[in-house]
């Protein structure tokens, strides 16, 4: 009996991610959700600009590479071209919450029937560790070498809270992948975000609080500890909006 195997939707190629990076886990969870729902043949993924830029090689479904921040607009085009397809974007914090904020907010407010996987690791990874829109107050990065000073650099953007305030989106949740319990919950939540699209419910975003050992300058295990001790208090986990559940509760 097979207890554990690679999801079929995850290509059998080596990933380019740094050792200890949690992108690998999140890729796996996305692929698992696609497998579980049996939608691989009609799914199209949108890769971002950032660490996951080459995600188009890692998923076995049809894939497209979007310009920095524009993935929700590209996904909108794909979905409008054929609403029967399942469209997901996979984006980092710089991509989604900085340069692509307009595309994110408007895809959400249109309740565009797409699934957004938002990886929040509080830093720009691909370009070598610059301050992200989600970097914590005081966080040292290449472009905040004395720590993020909120007086000049402002405060981190709380994406899930911000989007949950809109009337449009169907489902907004924040999960983490720093321990087994959280990974299991992340798996359930990501699957739900795809299921919502299959059931034509609308815009579903899962924010995944994630680590970046390389650019945080920590060992993988220290990074997960730092995530637990610093990020989760600023970015509390939970379901921020679930329109269908709210309706059922009425």
């Amino acid at each position, binding site marked *: 009996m097979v207890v554990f195997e690679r999801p079929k939707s995850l290509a059998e190629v080596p990933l380019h991610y740094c050792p200890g990076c949690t992108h690998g886990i999140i890729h796996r969870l996305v692929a698992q959700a696609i497998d579980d729902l049996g939608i691989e043949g*009609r799914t199209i993924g949108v890769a971002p600009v950032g660490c996951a830029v080459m995600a188009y090689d890692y998923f*076995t479904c049809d894939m497209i*590479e979007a*310009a920095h921040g*524009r993935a929700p*607009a590209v996904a909108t085009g794909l979905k*409008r*071209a054929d609403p029967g397809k399942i469209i997901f974007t996979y984006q980092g914090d710089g991509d989604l919450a900085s340069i692509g904020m307009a*595309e994110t907010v408007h895809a959400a407010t249109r309740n565009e029937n797409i699934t957004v996987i938002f990886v929040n690791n509080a830093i720009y990874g691909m370009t070598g560790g610059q301050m992200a829109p989600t970097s914590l107050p005081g966080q040292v990065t290449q472009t905040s070498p004395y720590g993020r000073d909120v007086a000049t650099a402002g405060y981190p953007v709380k994406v899930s809270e911000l989007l949950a305030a809109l009337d449009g989106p169907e489902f907004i949740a924040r999960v983490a992948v720093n321990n087994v319990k959280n990974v299991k919950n992340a798996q359930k939540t990501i699957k739900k975000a795809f299921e919502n699209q299959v059931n034509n419910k609308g815009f579903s975003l899962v924010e995944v609080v994630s680590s970046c050992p390389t650019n945080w300058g920590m060992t993988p295990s220290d990074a997960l500890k730092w995530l637990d001790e610093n990020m989760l208090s600023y970015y509390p986990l939970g379901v921020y909006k679930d329109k269908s559940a709210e309706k059922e509760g009425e």
Partner: protein
Amino acid sequence: MSEKVLMKGNEAIAEAAIRAGCRHYFGYPITPQTELAAYMAKRMPKIGGTFLQAESEIAAINMVYGVSAAGKRVMTSSSSPGVSLKQEGISYIAGADLPALIVNVQRGGPGLGGIQPSQSDYFQATKGGGHGDYHLIVLTPASVQEMADLTGLAFELADKYRMPAMLLADGTMGQMMEPVELPETEPEFIDKPWALTGTDMKREHNIVNSLYLVPEQLEKTNFERYERYKLVEENETRYESFMTEDADVCVVAFGIAARVSKNAVVEARKQGIKAGLIRPITVWPFPKKAIAEAAKTSKAFVSVELSMGQMIEDIKLASDCSRPVYLCNRVGGMIPSPEEVLESIKKAAGGNE
């Protein structure tokens, strides 16, 4: 034969696009292309199409990128400042070898400029516009009829050569009303095996992408793309010649400037000056051979433009600077009068700067 109807240029583009099988339109409000989006907003929901007013021109062009990747005919329209915003997306569309139609109903610039007609986006349209090496097929209508005809052609050529096409119009062409005969034939669609339609578990996954981190690979894609561009230059260069056979002075103008110039050429002939007109219908590819031919018999060229002199550079290149090229131009929303063009023709005929 279909009936002639009276239409605004902007509306003619919209109706012609629908008849060419375009069912996806993404735009953002800007003058003077307003009627085009308004027409699409009315029509698309009635025919099972998509009209979407995007949050920005940037989002609109990226929605175009998505639909095109899915293999469907798609368009966006804007005017100069908005088209500048689309350049990033256009570069990605060109880099991923996707077809699409971008309409630029030009207005005066730079900056916010004005809302009156202009041709000052010529460089942007014909030399690439965004980052990297690429071209668009750029068509320049000079009547409402051509607004319709060239729209259908733009979709065909874009599909055939897998590259974006641009309809480079101006505020006059967009706003003026003329009788137009709309196409009645069913559009023809070609197979797009590269499109993102889902693998259906029957084929390897398709990837639409413009990223090549290995320099040898990126170089190869650029070279291959320019081989394709050569074919476009050979097969798809379009222009109209008017009284050029024996012309001493060859006027070159497109769009509204060509219509004004035609009157000036006729008047010059009446006054005994052998003038002619080459009207590029494609400005990329530019009718280089026609200009080179004209340089053999004409004494001088006059470039009539609604810009500070952009197309004039292509005329000089195509004629190998073998003949003087005079510039007759108005900018900022102004249009040269036939008298002004005639003055330039006279100057060119007399050889006086």
